[in-house]
């Protein structure tokens, strides 16, 4: 009981020192508000607002119809260029697609001479190039057929109906919002917990703690709970206010289950933060190390590009990352409405990885303290 009480009291001290750092509080607020909202609204990976330019060397009814067929929200209104401007515009990255309709296009189509429309794709824009070029060809083929008044392509003998479950319109807003909450949880957890340890060591306040009848595990647990609590609260608020409120994302699953998931994940990441703190000797070292680890976890969680596409060795390696499992389960819970029955393996993985981090961190933390006492 005494131990629990002192863990609780130490944690409160941790919170108090956090509350005094206004810059840090401001950053936490920013991280869970605009940093979630802005990218979700502004930078989406689905094919939306693709920038198109048209070089119309034909000026016919048909070429005008083709330009009109590229509609928002998939495409921005097309701009018009001359033939000589194509290279400069593409080099500057102003348009992802530049379409060149040759002279006499309409008359060639009508005469059955099969003219060629050239579709220049900026293939460095990976997220849009593939999907967009397919869509443009399809739209043009249909539009030309309609222009010719041909009967709609004869009904194929098998119809294909694709439906997207869980997010019928395939809206990216949903996805990016949650992916950013997860990123910020990871960043905060590693840095807050780890930096708390490094700071005490640099300022020498750990010695004060050691005079008290406390065990290393108590000190660590206090740091874990205090930092985890801050982040869970911030993340849950962000989910309600920003994702559900501002971004209007319907949340299919159970928020309490997501909170449980987040707590397990925070246990893993705060332990990881402390582990990194025991490896680093000073704050600058810790900063670099933590940032490198954070970037790897964040970029490869599956939230930026899907895990399925990565090389097999990397996928295997990423099974040891708590972020991968957390991302999977958070997506499943929030969007697919998955219950405990389908995500329990992910939850256990997160907890198990967390336990390993905690154990290793504790062992190193003990050694660090005994070294300090030896001095």
């Amino acid at each position: 009981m005494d131990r629990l009480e002192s863990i609780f009291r130490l944690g409160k001290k941790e919170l108090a020192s956090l509350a005094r750092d206004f810059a840090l509080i401001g950053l936490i607020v920013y991280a869970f508000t605009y940093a979630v909202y802005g990218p979700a609204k502004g930078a989406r990976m689905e094919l939306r607002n693709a920038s198109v330019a048209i070089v119309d060397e034909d000026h016919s009814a048909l070429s005008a119809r083709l330009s009109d067929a590229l509609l928002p929200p998939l495409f921005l209104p097309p701009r018009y260029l001359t033939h000589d401007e194509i290279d400069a515009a593409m080099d500057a990255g102003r348009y992802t697609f530049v379409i060149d309709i040759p002279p006499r296009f309409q008359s060639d189509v009508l005469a059955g001479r099969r003219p060629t429309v050239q579709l220049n794709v900026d293939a460095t824009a990976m997220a849009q190039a593939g999907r967009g070029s397919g869509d443009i060809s399809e739209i043009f083929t249909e539009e030309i057929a309609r222009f010719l008044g041909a009967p709609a392509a004869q009904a194929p003998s098998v119809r294909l109906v694709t439906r997207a479950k869980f997010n019928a319109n395939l809206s990216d807003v949903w996805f990016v919002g949650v992916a950013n909450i997860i990123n910020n949880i990871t960043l905060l957890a590693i840095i807050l917990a780890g930096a708390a340890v490094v700071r005490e060591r640099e300022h020498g306040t750990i010695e004060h703690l050691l005079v008290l009848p406390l065990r290393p595990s108590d000190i660590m647990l206090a740091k874990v709970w205090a930092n985890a609590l801050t982040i869970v609260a911030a993340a849950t608020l962000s989910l309600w206010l920003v994702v559900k409120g501002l971004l209007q994302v319907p949340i299919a699953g159970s928020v309490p289950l997501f909170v449980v998931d987040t707590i397990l994940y925070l246990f893993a990441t705060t332990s990881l933060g402390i582990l990194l703190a025991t490896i680093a000797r000073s704050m600058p070292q810790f900063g670099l190390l933590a940032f490198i680890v954070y970037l790897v976890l964040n970029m490869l969680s599956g939230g930026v590009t899907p895990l399925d596409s990565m090389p097999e060795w990397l996928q295997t390696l990423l099974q040891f990352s708590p972020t991968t499992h957390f991302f999977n389960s958070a997506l499943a819970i929030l969007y697919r409405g998955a219950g405990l029955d389908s995500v329990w393996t992910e939850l256990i993985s997160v907890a198990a990885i967390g336990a390993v981090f905690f154990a290793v961190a504790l062992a190193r933390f003990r050694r660090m303290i005994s070294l300090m006492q030896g001095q």
Partner: protein
Amino acid sequence: MELRRDPIRLAFATLGPIILMVVFGFGITFDVERLTYATLDRDRSPESRAYLENFSSSRYFTTRAPIVDDADLEKRLRSGELRLVVEIPPGFGRDLQRGRSPEVAVWLDGAFPFRAETTQGYVEGVHERFLQELALESRAAPEPPAPADIQARFRYNQAFLSVYAIVPGTIMLLLLFMPAIMTALAVVREKELGSIVNFYVTPTTKLEFLLGKQLPYVGVALVNFVTLMALAVWLFGVPVKGSVAALVLGAVIYVFSSTAFGLMVSNFVRTQIAAIFATAIVTTIPAIQYSGYLLPVSSMSVDAQAIGRAFASTYFLHLSLGTFTKALDFSSLTFDLAALVVITLVVTTLARAALPAQET
């Protein structure tokens, strides 16, 4: 120099970017493949098997155990095991023979929109192929040739592989993050430990102080740049096709701007924790989301574009992509270089202006 006395930090600073480059270069990819799928064949006729054959032979799809019923379908999509499910209705083969058009249903996991859209494209491709085979078998009248050709040219990246876009982008990311965070920490550390007082008692000007803090990290960052370039060329096989001079010059200006950015952040925070956190959060979002690394700047919302254009990353990314992949020469990159210089000067001025404000 302070940095030389800390070999561990130096090691992190030089090895870290190498590790990150390798991991990102292989890991960040838009080439969607190996999608796990399962089938729900309610027909089990030769025709339905022929249809499904097309999926199992595609390199884009990986087969999992067939689905038994609706509940199973729901459960396995829900758990994230499957990316798509192909459902064949009962009587598929019979309907096909009688010339009625049966309906194949494909269920996608929409939780990851980018993947779902790409998957949809692949599914349509597989479906088309089946229809063509069907047309061939039935020796029906061949479809009339299309009235016009639409020829797509994938410029700059004929093979359409992510690595050509991601590797130059990753150089941009790493040359921002590492220098910025190291510089920010160096200054805030002095503040926190109190040794910044030395600066007030010695007769150095503000600019000298800032440059003195900045230069070592500029040096480290340039070493990083050289190793990253070597990795790009030899490990990933992404050659520099355009002007090397522009790339090198751009990188030098860019790391000055990254370190100046670190200095600027250091002026607004008091603790080292806040410095790490501030640099991380303030740099990652513009650099990853708004710079054009993941999607073209021209497709972003107005405010996202405005933020993107205020950061040096956007210009350096264009320069990096331009020289590596787009084979641009020096003259077509002068705008980016000029923009980098302007932003660097602005950021340095801000860092300098903010310096005394904090001291009192």
